[in-house]
């Protein structure tokens, strides 16, 4: 496995008559393989569209997502002027779904990203240091791992109280042990390899070995594993808001919208179910993209 630098395409045409075809880098191979995977590509397009809509929501929203109206409460899907209907306070649902994507996606992705950085750090340290440090770190991680993820997320944010920051913190703590475990096991494997021994024998220090030999080999598998957590994170983050532990009203967020629309389950059932459909589409797309990435990298779990 080569380092990230290999992603830069080599300008083959600029080379003077190549005697051999230069092999593409590892990441270029991965990219070439994933592009040929139709499911992963569909998922990528859906995600790009959702992210694009969320980012540009303030400029493309058809109506004010905060404007309430007593006269247009709970209109069905397809109402003129309200394509996706209106919610229990008469706010335009399409606009709220578009703007809600911002918080939902942010709250789903951020914990995994943060946990990827912290968890890899902890796992690589434990795996590379070995011995007592490894035991101390991994036994602590085991305790967090002893909780089912939903329970741990709810325990922490239940104790910390509602709020975006608290929800993000809880979810990050949920994912750190899972990522650290993978990071530790991959790093332990690399540490025992001959090339690390060789580097050490030629006088390389711990920092140099980690930077030059360990990181390049372990970050790929850890990253692929982390991407598979985004789907869970989306479901959990929206779930916390659904329970009233995350985003607070009137801010639009898919999980929170699903919760407040629950009262409309008998009057406008399909409007009530819409925000959840968006959580589902996002979550399944992340899962399919992650599956595609895993098979493209041939990382075995």
């Amino acid at each position, binding site marked *: 496995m080569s380092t990230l630098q290999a992603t830069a395409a080599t300008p083959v045409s600029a080379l003077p008559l190549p005697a051999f075809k230069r092999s593409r880098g590892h990441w270029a191979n991965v990219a070439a393989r994933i592009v040929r995977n139709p499911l992963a590509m569909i998922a990528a397009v859906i995600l790009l569209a959702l992210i694009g809509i969320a980012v540009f929501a303030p400029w493309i929203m058809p109506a004010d997502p905060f404007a309430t109206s007593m006269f247009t409460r709970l209109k069905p899907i397809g109402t003129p002027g309200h394509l996706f209907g209106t919610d229990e306070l008469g706010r335009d649902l399409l606009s709220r779904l578009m703007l809600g994507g911002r918080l939902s996606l942010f709250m789903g992705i951020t914990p995994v990203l943060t946990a990827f950085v912290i968890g890899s750090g902890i796992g690589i340290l434990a795996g590379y240091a070995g011995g007592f440090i490894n035991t101390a770190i991994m036994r602590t991680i085991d305790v967090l791992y002893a909780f089912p993820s*939903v329970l741990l997320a709810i325990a922490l944010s239940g104790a910390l109280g509602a709020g975006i920051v608290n929800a993000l913190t809880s979810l990050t703590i949920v994912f750190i042990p899972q990522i650290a475990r993978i990071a530790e096991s991959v790093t332990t494997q690399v540490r025992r390899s001959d090339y690390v021994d060789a580097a050490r024998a030629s006088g390389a220090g711990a920092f140099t070995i980690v930077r030059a030999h360990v990181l390049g080999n372990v970050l790929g598998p850890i990253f692929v594993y982390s991407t598979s957590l985004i789907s869970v994170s989306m479901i959990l983050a929206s779930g916390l808001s659904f329970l009233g532990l995350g985003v607070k009203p009137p801010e639009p967020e898919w999980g929170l919208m699903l919760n407040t629309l629950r009262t409309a*389950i008998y009057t406008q059932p399909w409007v009530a179910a819409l925000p959840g459909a968006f959580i589902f589409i996002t979550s*399944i797309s992340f899962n399919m993209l992650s599956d595609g990435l895993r098979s493209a990298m041939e990382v075995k779990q």
Partner: protein
Amino acid sequence: MISYLIRRVLYAMPIMLGVAFLCFMLVHIAPGDPLVAILPPDASVDLQKQLMELYGFNRSYPEQFFSWVWRAMHGDLGSSIATGRPVAQEVFKAVGNTFMIAALATLIGFFFGSLFGFVAGYFRNSWVDKIASFISVVGVSVPHYWLGMVLVIIFSSQLMWLPATGAGPDGSAAWIWDFEHVKYLIMPAVTMSFIPMGIIARTVRALVADILSQEFVIGLKARGLGEFGVFRHVVKNCAPTAMAVMGLQLGYLLGGSILIETVFSWPGTGFLLNQAIFQRDLPLLQGTILVLALFFVSLNLLVDILQTVFDPRIERA
């Protein structure tokens, strides 16, 4: 093997202590003074003193922790602030209800998960595999609280076949195993079963594919064993792992039932947690989480032990 089993049990002890420590800390990470957090807003000075004494907030942390653990080991998890009833009593009543839907969901999920997994693993890369794999991706990707809502919309709001919420026609009184009560059980359990179904289907597919590619299968076929004979061997080989995954899934569902119980107003541990969170009933929150987490650790331990006993091929270091 015996020495492994002993070590495995001993290893679970510090984990359980760690779990207890984390639950103990929940009260302390709560914002504000822990005493204020557990006090009802209209607390009298008398009650304040009484609780101070009971929780021992005036003592050092280690002292507090060990006295809390000591009381918990004797079945005393404190009293709920909202109801004043002992937490242990509330939790054990709720655990039974959660266990009902979680166990049923695990069985349903195991049945369909194994079915899809086997079909997908046997006919790898065929259209059957693609469909089965897609169903399993849906199972792990669907927000189950939303799935629950969709089922309520279809079967309660539109078709009016099944009751939407609660655990029986007469509120959440005593549970009886008759059709009138089981009707309330169906939707929460089916909703919940999607998670283990997806995970078990993925596991079984990978297992079957792996076993079919092993040499002994070719050997069996070469010796003239029919399709069914080979199938039996595949089942026997993947059963221990599949059962282990099923056991762990039961633990996850028990701990993760809060969202589904909220949707269906099912009077289990999730409902209790919900109540605890919104009434800032920290002893109840702490107690419920402790019981669920310890249950999960014990279930892990049990699965490990059973796996070692029934599948001696697994070499335990």
